[in-house]
């Protein structure tokens, strides 16, 4: 018999992660069913965009005259402005320079918006969806990840950023920001202990960390924003969307000048988005969830390369 030529490494790697990729296919199919049943329409917005949202630490790769999207946020909000009420999207997003166990420059995002909902509604919806997905993808509402169990049927833990800082670092978030140690303490002291045993929602970020979130009506020092953690890994980010045109323009300007100060390349201003928000955007909430990381949790994988084909 003639000897076949050896297979390329990527084919061997795919053979090794085949079972996980099939579970991934099942997860995505379950997500679609869940959203479809909840009355959402699946949409597709352009992957190549003209003006990324100005954010200090997120680098959208340049693609010719345009950019690859770091997130579909602004485009999906333009759909809300056009009267869409409940929309979701699953697709590739790109962030230059992000590479690690939980990061790839190209990753898959699930993002959805619900007109009329606030971040609390979204929290309940997300917890319910995770419970459903755990059963349908991992086969049980209790999932073991890297030796520790997450029970998705348990009531999720809800803790504010302020309480988390006080409990796990002994300083207030304001003091941490003052000392320029907010991110460092978050990564070394807080994130690793969140989402142990059950999902954790870290809520009410300081206004200075609000991104595109609306400030809380009862307390303007914090924003209506949460992040979901499972087993120490950040899975999703959500907020009650900011729709105040003046506030939005001010935050974009602030982020744009922070990018200049930090030596990052400037983005073209998102003029059409600002115009849409000026013309009136409905109250809504939105969430972005990392599909690759969720499937890592459900299949007990410690690196993204085990749940996603690597570039060839």
């Amino acid at each position, binding site marked *: 018999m003639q000897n076949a030529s050896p297979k390329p490494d990527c084919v061997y790697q795919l053979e090794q992660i085949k079972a996980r990729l099939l579970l991934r296919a099942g997860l995505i199919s379950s997500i679609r069913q869940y959203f479809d049943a909840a009355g959402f329409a699946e949409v597709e917005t352009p992957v190549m965009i003209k003006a990324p949202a100005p954010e200090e630490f997120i680098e959208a790769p340049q693609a010719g005259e345009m950019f690859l999207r770091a997130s579909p946020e602004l485009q999906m909000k333009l759909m809300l402005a056009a009267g869409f009420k409940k929309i979701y999207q699953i697709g590739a997003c790109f962030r230059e320079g992000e*590479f690690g166990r939980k*990061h790839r420059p190209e990753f898959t995002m699930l993002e959805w918006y619900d007109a009329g909902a606030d971040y609390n509604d979204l929290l309940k919806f997300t917890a319910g969806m995770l419970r459903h997905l755990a059963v349908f993808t991992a086969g049980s509402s209790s999932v073991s990840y890297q030796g520790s169990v997450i029970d998705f049927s348990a009531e999720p833990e809800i803790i504010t950023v302020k309480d988390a800082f006080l409990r796990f670092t002994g300083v207030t978030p304001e003091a941490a920001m003052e000392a320029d140690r907010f991110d460092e303490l978050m*990564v070394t002291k807080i994130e690793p202990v969140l989402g142990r045993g059950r999902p954790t929602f870290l809520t009410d970020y300081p206004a200075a960390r609000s991104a595109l979130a609306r400030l809380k009506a009862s307390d303007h020092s914090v924003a209506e924003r949460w992040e979901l953690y499972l087993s120490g890994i950040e899975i999703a980010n959500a907020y009650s969307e900011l729709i105040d045109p003046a506030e939005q323009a001010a935050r974009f300007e602030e982020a744009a000048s922070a990018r200049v100060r930090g030596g990052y390349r400037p983005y073209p201003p998102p003029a059409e988005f600002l115009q849409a928000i000026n013309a009136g955007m409905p109250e809504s909430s939105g969430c972005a969830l990392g599909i690759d990381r969720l499937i890592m949790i459900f299949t007990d994988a410690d690196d993204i390369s085990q749940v996603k084909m690597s570039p060839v």
Partner: protein
Amino acid sequence: MFSASDLKKGLKVQVDGEPWAITEFEFCKPGKGTSLYRCKLKNMITGSTIDRTYRPTDKLDKPDLEEKEMYYSYAEGDFYVFSDAETFEEMHVSAKMLGRDKYFLIENSQCKMLLFNGLPIEITLPTFIEKVITDTEPGARGDTATNVLKSAKIDNGYEIQVPLFINTGDLVKIDTRTGLYAERVSKA
């Protein structure tokens, strides 16, 4: 100079004037926050470890490290002298740095020497060396079991556990990484 984004497991960096190896590395980026590079560092001289978190703007010095092929020549008091294969330059290494390895030095054996700022900080001997057993109690006659061990000594007094069938005068192979008996080379 290294940028924080150059950091990875295995890289050697200079911190506070000393050489450190990165033994664990993780890229982190809290939601909407800055990139952070979490490292566990092992001091290449003392072996102590520290945790450090670096930011994208941080710069780290590159340690002046050099690896050389050296030959062991002779002992001089508390020092052991190695010579460079090409330049014949001699380098004195203290007994303290060699630790257990001082018992496994064979004249003219080729070793790897790691130098920091021109001074030796680590010697790697050949993985296996051969030594003659100079003293051991005779094993019970006909006992060839390999899982029962007894004490034996080599010429410089180093004590090693060997199987019962090893006798004084036998040549044995020793694993320098573990300091343990590996196999018998030849009988006395």
